């Protein structure tokens, strides 16, 4: 007999398979949790992979100190509701400990500094595998990264030394000091994630939906939510608009898009019509250079 599965069923089965391979192959894995929709989807997939048992890994959040307050609240509530361990490490502390220089400028982003905190927390808990919600459709460099991506002790990705990844066999064997970044939803697109959120009725932080917000208009025309971290001057144009966020990174480098989408269904309709990619619409840090993501990955970024 032949059964046809919906493509979301197949993507889900693949992701659960990958999560269980992590549990089976590693001693001390961790799930990197940002409070964004992709990592929220990962927690739902982990429930499907490991219940009625506990997750075989803690949730780890690298807090830049510039996070949206709604997202931090959501994070704590979700961890409590799941009954899973949450480890939070602050970029603020890394800056003090390592005497790092705070980024300056009008819109200071701590995104580049996250890598330092991430490497610190990996060292502190000796994590051998870190699960993340990155997807290959986000960016051209990510399109080439493996699902099990081996990093050296500096967290560096070397695209030329990647292991071939065959069939659905994942090789997580590493040497001391190395660790693996694992991307279970590599093959999902932004639209797939939203369709899954809809199908599974997964609650999200409010900032994903249309709401009124006071924003700064950037020279590019993008909107940045007002916060105390921005260094504004008289020339900045301040407006109040109906907006939502497509990604929730650091609040100082994640732009809002104008939208009155109230429901997941509205957002899916928005996306079907949208003509700008997720990172292009919302991430200020990728636009710095065309090889932006490739460089950051080589330096240990997710």
């Amino acid at each position, binding site marked *: 007999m032949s059964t046809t599965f919906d493509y979301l069923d197949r993507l889900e089965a693949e992701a659960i398979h990958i999560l269980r391979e992590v549990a089976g192959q590693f001693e001390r894995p961790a799930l990197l949790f940002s409070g964004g929709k992709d990592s929220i989807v990962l927690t739902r997939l982990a429930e499907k992979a490991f219940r009625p048992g506990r997750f075989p890994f803690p949730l780890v959040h690298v807090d830049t100190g510039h996070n949206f307050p709604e997202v931090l609240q959501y994070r704590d509530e979700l961890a409590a509701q799941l009954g899973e361990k949450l480890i939070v490490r602050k970029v603020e502390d890394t800056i003090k400990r390592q005497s790092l220089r705070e980024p300056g400028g009008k819109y200071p982003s701590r995104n580049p500094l996250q890598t330092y905190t991430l490497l610190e927390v990996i060292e502190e808990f000796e994590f051998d595998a870190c699960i993340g919600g990155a997807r290959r459709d986000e960016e051209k460099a990510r399109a080439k990264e493996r699902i099990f991506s081996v990093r050296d002790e500096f967290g560096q990705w070397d695209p030329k030394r990647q292991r071939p990844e065959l069939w659905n066999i994942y*090789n997580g064997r590493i040497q001391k000091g190395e660790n693996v970044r694992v991307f279970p939803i590599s093959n999902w697109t932004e639209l797939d994630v939203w369709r899954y959120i809809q199908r599974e009725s997964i609650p999200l932080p409010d900032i994903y939906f249309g709401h009124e917000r006071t924003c700064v208009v950037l020279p590019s025309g993008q909107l940045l939510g007002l916060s105390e971290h921005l260094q504004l001057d008289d020339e900045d144009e301040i407006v109040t608009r109906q907006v939502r966020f497509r990604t929730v990174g650091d609040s100082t480098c994640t732009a809002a898009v104008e939208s009155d989408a109230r429901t997941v269904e509205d957002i899916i309709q928005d996306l079907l019509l949208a003509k700008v990619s997720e990172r292009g619409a919302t991430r200020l840090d990728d636009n710095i250079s065309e090889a932006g993501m490739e460089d950051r990955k080589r330096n240990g970024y997710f």
Partner: protein
Amino acid sequence: MDLLRFITCGSVDDGKSTLIGRLLYDSESVSLDVLAALEKRQASGGVVDLALLTDGLRAEREQGITIDVAYKYFTTPRRKFIITDAPGHVQYTRNMVTGASNADLAIVLVDARQGVIEQTRRHTLIAALLGIRHFVLAVNKMDLVNYDEAVFAQIATDYAELTNHFHLPAATAIPLSALQGDNVVKPSQHLPWYTGPSLLQHLESVPGAQETEAAPRFQVQYVIRPQTPELPDYRGYAGQILSGQYRRGQRVRVLPSGLESEIEAIEVNQQEVETASAPQAVVIRLRDDVDVSRGDALVPAGPEEPILTRELEATLCWMSEQPLWPGRKLLVQHHSALSKAAVSAILYKVNVQTFARVHTEQAQLNDIVRVRLKTALPLAVDNYADNRTTGSFILVDELTGDTLAAGLVEAANSEYFTPPMQPPVAFSI
């Protein structure tokens, strides 16, 4: 809506990246900012170079070539597609094998001006070796041969000869121009003599993966033992159904131990279900308290059992820069099962232009070789021709952890073992 994974194969100048770019572009899967970034890089202005949509890494941009497997996605109202783009250079057999291992369909691209060339044969044979059953012969650059039907017909005939000769599945030949957009997504007025589907129409109608048709196979990835006051004795075997279908109450054998039990429950997301089939991720509970751990297989007892063996014959694609010598010790990873192993003999090398067998002492990077493998622990395998999942494995370097080879089980029973090939005897007059 279902899912189709396909690989595109072609040599450097066949316009493979342009074809993928065209599929993404004409199916409206390219966003404006991505197009803007491309246009910014167009030194001379003019038309956007669609090939740049897939050439991702800086080294590739500098050299103008694709160096590694890349994945691209697009969705039509009928299907989600995952494109694996593997480069076509001779030295990159490894990438082609990697890409083909997950694909349901292969698009073999040829330049209408050149027709079927050495690379075409090579790509077709590798894709067929990896078990791909659906082939599309995409005859590209029809605009450069004045959309001439006779040119297309000749290439299609040449290719059919190739597939017949090697007993490969018949290909669907489609004339197109990726650069001009003829017949990739939309049918073209330049090809009035062609009445078949456009490439995309064909891709939307090909049957997808059919893993439910093979014998039932399941491997334990992880044992769930909550050990809570509510569930003190719960023991669930978490894994993915690799092929076929399982049902509650079914008799199963645990391999390699050979112990038998019955499926007490199959759980999907903590809900008990009567049946489950590949590729579902499930938790299976057994009626008896038998010893089961990661890597063990649960299979139906009886004639559909896999082959349990410590010695097998396999085709390897060697992927390491250090050559393989007979006697080499390594690890074999058969999905979630792991064992020490040794390549006890290299039987012959396969010439991927001709499928001819050639004597060899060692395997080099990108060689396809037939070997005999001995494993420390017994593995429950199927022949690759019967099951692409349980018939596949990788070889791993025990020290560095690197993946050394892709392996396809060809014969797992000594009755069918091939005698080693002797070195050619030199004639003396």
